């Protein structure tokens, strides 16, 4: 310290302060993207993070001199972060859209139109498809994948029991027949195993139930599309199974939103999204899993089949010089087989028909089952499906409380259904 006198020290402090100020200024300048760098935001688990990071590196190699700045987070954290980024007008240039916020982000003006970007080739989609992707008449998002509601079953357990699911046809693959089968199976199942886990808040499967009953999750004018009777019927379907000992209770599955590692070896059948088989089947490598579309009511409403489009968007406030690069990156996501090879199918079946065909070449056995179920679902007649309106972001939490009330026997099915309806209605009202 002998050589570090006060003058020298003050000089160092001054230099440090200048450096810090400079760094801050440069960082601030970096908030937007220049023409050669672009921010890409997505969600998922660690495996998906690694796969997409590799894919973004491949994209950078395809486009020399380009830098892709990844912004990755867990699904819940992603929603929180991008909303806060919106408040600060610091939104990533290209980002995935969580299902509850498609319309919220649209209302906030986050989406840039996509059909005027020369580097983005939309020729793989038919005009009708492109029309169905539009929000308020504008093509400002594109589907990067399609998910459907599906029933996953453990074929190994079935073989062990010498049992078979009801035949996969309109007469036998019904809600009632499935319920009867699960109750029968559970009577003779090995200790600790049940027919199904209690998964009444799974949104796509609930939506399938609603559409078969001639209702919708959301309406075209941004309201709830279902009534208390339909919800009570859904709750009751699950309660019959729980009371019969065919569904795990909330204690056995550690909550109303069970984690697959907790229940994966305890149940024969699982309701969920079609794409979940890609990540969840490998967690139990000793078992073989099968996948089917949802059971169907004998008098199901026409056009009840549907696929959920998982969307990607370009930020409205993107720098003009970055638009072309953003188009190339979206193009890479939805049109490039190399991307498919690198990231796999954990996000679902490609929405691009050409990529869907290419997906069979890279899919493993479980993923092929997913592709087949999605293709089968989408081949059927479909009435329009509407995105979740602004203010509906917490409807899943409200649903979870309703499920807890019913499954913990703290409220009757009808009371719980009425409360869920009232709570969602209030949330939507506060947002409007």
């Amino acid at each position, binding site marked *: 310290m002998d050589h570090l006198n006060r003058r020298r020290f003050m000089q160092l402090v001054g230099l440090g302060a200048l450096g810090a100020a400079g760094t801050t200024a440069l960082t601030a300048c970096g908030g937007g993207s220049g023409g050669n760098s672009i921010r890409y935001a997505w969600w998922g688990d660690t495996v998906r993070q690694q796969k997409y990071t590799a894919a973004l590196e491949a994209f950078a190699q395809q486009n020399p001199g380009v830098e892709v700045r990844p912004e990755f987070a867990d699904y819940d954290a992603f*929603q929180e972060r991008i909303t806060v980024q919106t*408040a600060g007008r610091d939104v990533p240039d290209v980002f995935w859209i969580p299902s509850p916020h498609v319309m919220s982000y649209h209302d906030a003006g986050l989406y840039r139109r996509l059909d005027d970007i020369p580097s983005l080739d939309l020729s793989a989609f038919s005009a009708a498809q492109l029309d169905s992707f539009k929000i308020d008449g504008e093509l400002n998002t594109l589907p990067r994948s399609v998910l459907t509601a599906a029933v996953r079953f453990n074929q190994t357990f079935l073989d062990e029991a010498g049992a078979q699911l009801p035949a996969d046809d309109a007469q036998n693959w019904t809600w009632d027949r499935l319920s009867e089968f699960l109750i029968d199976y559970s009577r003779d199942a090995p200790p600790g195993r049940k027919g199904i886990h209690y998964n009444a808040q799974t949104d796509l499967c609930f939506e399938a139930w609603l559409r078969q009953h001639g209702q919708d999750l959301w309406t075209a004018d941004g309201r709830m599309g279902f009534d208390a009777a339909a919800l009570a019927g859904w709750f009751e379907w699950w309660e019959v199974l729980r009371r019969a000992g065919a569904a795990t209770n909330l204690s056995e599955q550690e909550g109303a939103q069970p984690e697959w590692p907790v229940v994966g070896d305890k149940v024969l059948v699982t309701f969920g999204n079609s794409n979940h088989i890609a990540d969840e089947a490998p967690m139990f490598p000793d078992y073989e899993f099968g996948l089917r579309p949802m059971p169907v009511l004998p008098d199901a409403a026409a056009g009840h089949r549907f696929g959920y489009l998982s969307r990607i968007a370009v930020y409205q406030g993107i720098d003009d010089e970055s638009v072309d690069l953003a188009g190339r990156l979206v193009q890479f996501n939805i049109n490039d087989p190399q991307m498919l090879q690198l990231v796999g199918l954990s996000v679902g079946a490609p929405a691009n028909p050409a990529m869907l065909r290419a997906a069979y070449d890279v899919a493993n056995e479980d993923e092929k089952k997913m592709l087949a179920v999605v293709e089968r679902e989408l081949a059927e007649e479909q009435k329009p499906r509407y995105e979740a309106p602004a203010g509906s972001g917490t409807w899943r939490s409200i649903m979870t409380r309703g499920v*807890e009330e019913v499954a*913990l026997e703290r409220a009757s099915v009808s009371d719980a259904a009425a409360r869920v309806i009232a709570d969602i209605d209030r949330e939507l009202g506060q947002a409007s």
Partner: protein
Amino acid sequence: MSHDTLVRPAAQGLPEQRGRRRPPSFRRQGRAAHVFLLPFLLGLVLITAVPLLASLYLSFTDYDLLHDPELIGLDNFRRMVEDERFWASVGVTLRYVLVSVPLQLAFALLLAVVLDRGMRGLALYRSAFYLPSLLGSSVAVAILWRQLFGHEGLVNSVLGWFGVTGESWLQNPDTALSTLVVLNVWTFGSPMIIFLAGLRQIPEELYEAARVDGAGRVRQFWSVTVPLLTPIVFFNLVLQTIGAFQAFTQAHIISSGQGGPLDSTLFYTLYLYQQGFQSFNMGYASAMAWVLLLVIAVVTAGHFLLSRYWVFYGDER
């Protein structure tokens, strides 16, 4: 030690007369002091004061983060009155504060008294007991708690040895909060260390005098230890109460951010977080934050007011 060494060096440079121009060396020292203070002051203003004032403004607005805030007067505060989940979160938090803080302090004091008896391996025990406090309300501990109190957790396994079949403690609305109370009590290390330091300050002569007067251990504890330790109890009480009002992480992890089952672990801060970052009612969340701040301030002021009746500082009451 010479008398000169007791003179504070800074005093040597003090001006002899008011109004006299300060010497250049003093001004340079002042500048240096400001430079050293600058990082803290910048942090105070930019990271604390500005957001604090911004949240005060936002508490009077309808703000969803996606659109510009819109002034709505006191509507957010009125909404709290009618919000069932708000009151549920108040109830959960008050129960947690009222049960967990006294239990934690009692447990910490008990352990401190035991450790103060000069047992062998004291440093080891002290470190071991302090360890949970280092982990605190961390994610790792919350996950550990799920393993302990889950359906197939250690607690139910032990109960199973005695033929008791248990449900998941965390999925039962009647027991979920209790597990979080136990978690808080378990992190008693910090108040225990402070109690231990306080115990070491009590003069041994007082115990000797009490023994001469025929006081047993229990009487010594209540008539000597407790009265002289009341300033430390007060200090711990204030800190732990404030901390308990702000409890968040453990409930967030254990209930997957829901505060369930059936809102039984919906702490005030968790509901505030849900409103701000899940429902995106940032105006309402800001109003809730200010209500919490005021409640903590009132409770702390109440502690200080009541302290004059039970906290002893030397010979003052």
